[in-house]
């Protein structure tokens, strides 16, 4: 644990982003982003490619100029400062290690810039390498290392300067699946230990959910939703977020509210919500989003109870392992459902979906946002 005691970091810095507009070569990429990062928090910026998440990170780090808006670090606006004066350290997707330097030179670069002595640099690099599981690699050429090792060196280089803010730009996307899982935990553990404010850009939903305290879902240059992994996953605030977070089945429904009760109609299925349930559903035409594993198969005429049972027909079946995956035609849509019991294609079934697991949004809003592929 001597290594741990030497790797000291200041407490993470707070960031306040206000009304951030950024354009890339005449094209507006960010349309007014407001976002706060608490000191020591781990935030994942999640979104499909082109949503502006990487641009936001690069605007924070000073690599792309800001059109308007402010980026306050610890109360001081840094939006006009060059990258070297912002106190943020980034880990690049491409690692961006300098191939003409050794591991020691790469990690020690920032310390050398700050005028540290050779001995101090060697000691600090040594302890960082121990923390990263690369003890004794000082004199290696970075070109002679594996992807996972390079990623660790890149992380070490960023952490060596004791940054208040750590920026991670899809750092795991070039790694093998197995190493990726290990690195998720390692980065998270190191972040917790050092208390550095961390912003992680990724398009991998699971990566974001498992690593971050808080997710920021971005869509077309705007923030779609901010929340803990549970909030974003279980209570998406828009059709886009529901769809992006994996609720890919879309069922057209009709909602009638009034006289203290709400009625949901989906194809031939009809469900009257009990009086005590108040889901604040939008009235009129709506789209219900649900995950493959939320629904199950039942008899077409089964008693609905608390669920919505939509009659349908099995169109196709596959076996990905553990359970069967069905394509079910119901209410004029093709839906994907996972179920443990084997049914034959063509069989009439009832698609049973618990009401609590339906994410229902007005059709007008949904049709605009859901057209963006997840």
């Amino acid at each position, binding site marked *: 644990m001597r290594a741990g005691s030497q790797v000291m970091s200041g407490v993470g810095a707070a960031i306040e982003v206000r009304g951030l507009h950024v354009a890339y070569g005449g094209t507006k990429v960010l349309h007014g982003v407001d976002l706060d990062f608490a000191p020591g928090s781990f935030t994942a910026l999640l979104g499909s490619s082109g949503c502006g998440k990487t641009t936001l990170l690069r605007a924070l780090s000073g690599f792309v100029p800001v059109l308007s808006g402010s980026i306050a670090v610890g109360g001081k606006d840094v939006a006009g400062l060059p990258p070297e004066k912002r106190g943020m350290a980034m880990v690049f997707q491409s690692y961006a290690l300098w191939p*003409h330097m050794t591991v020691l030179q790469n990690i020690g670069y920032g310390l050398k*810039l700050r005028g540290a002595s050779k001995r101090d640099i060697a000691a600090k690099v040594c302890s960082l390498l121990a923390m990263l599981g690369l003890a004794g690699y000082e004199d290696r050429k970075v070109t002679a290392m594996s992807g996972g090792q390079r990623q660790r060196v890149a992380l070490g280089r960023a952490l060596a300067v004791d940054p208040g803010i750590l920026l991670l730009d899809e750092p795991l996307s070039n790694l093998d699946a197995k190493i990726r899982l290990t690195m998720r935990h390692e980065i998270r553990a190191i972040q917790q230990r050092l208390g550095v404010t961390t912003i992680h850009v990724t398009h991998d939903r699971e990566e974001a959910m498992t690593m971050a305290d808080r997710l920021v879902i971005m869509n077309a240059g705007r923030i779609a939703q901010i929340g803990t992994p549970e909030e974003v996953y279980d209570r998406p605030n828009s059709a886009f977020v529901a769809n992006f977070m994996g609720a890919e089945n879309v069922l057209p429904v009709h909602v009638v509210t009034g006289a203290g009760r709400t009625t949901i109609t989906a194809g031939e299925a009809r469900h009257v919500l009990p009086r005590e349930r108040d889901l604040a559903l939008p009235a009129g035409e709506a789209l219900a989003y649900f995950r493959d594993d939320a629904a199950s198969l039942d008899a077409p005429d089964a008693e609905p109870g608390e669920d919505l049972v939509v009659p349908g027909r099995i169109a196709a079946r596959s076996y990905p392992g553990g359970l069967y995956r069905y394509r079910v035609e119901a209410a004029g849509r093709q839906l994907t459902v996972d179920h443990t019991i084997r049914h034959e294609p063509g069989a009439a079934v009832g698609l049973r979906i618990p009401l609590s697991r339906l994410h229902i949004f007005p059709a007008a809003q949904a049709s605009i946002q859901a057209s963006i592929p997840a």
Partner: protein
Amino acid sequence: MMHLGSALRTALAAFLLAAFAFVLIGPLANLALWSVAERWYTPYKLPVSYGTRYWEQVFRPTGDAMASLGTSVFIAVLTVAVALALSIPAGYALARLRLPARALFMVVFLLPQAFPSVAIYINVARVFYQLGINGTVLGVVLVHAAHGLVYSVWIAAAAFGAVDKDLELAARNIGASPLKTFVSVTLPLAAPGIVASGIFVFLESLDEFTGTFFVGVPQVRTLPLLLYNAAMGGNYQVASITALILLVPSVLFMLFIERFLRADVLAKVGA
């Protein structure tokens, strides 16, 4: 069938190797033969008498060859210095900065190649004469550098362009100023290309004739001028020896390239 095929392939390889050796070594052998031929005239296929008389003449302390070689190398080194001093900033600017007239800028460096060199050098000589640098090493260096810049700027731009921008951003990101980033990251990574362009400029300068003839003569006499004089005077022996001397730096530089610049690095130049 297999056996015949491999035999054919071996024969073809041997033939190609022999052809290559003939093309490469033939002219050199001819030069070497001429340099030791004291008397050689038609119809004889080989020299009539051999000797080292002309070598002695060239390497005589009072001879022109060694002095010319010194002048040539001196001018070439200065030319490389001038060309690199211009092409490193120019190449970086062309590769990285968004200049409004980037294409125009690139073409300006190509312009000297677009006209017959004699026409240019006569005018250059006239201007230099008015400036008082005609017949000086400075004048010759400037002419050689203008010629070499065509290549060195383009090669340097390619070398800088091949350096991943993220590598620079990574340095800026952890606290390096733009200048520090350039010196510690960009320049070392572009160095193989820059060295290659320097070598190219050096060899071009060593070989240059027309510009030196108009701007340098008679005060500045480089090796190619000596060679030309000897050849014009029908002295093939001295011309051959001069040519062989001119080959030495070229071969040394090829060895340097082979030793220090890997093929994959060289392939990036111009990419």
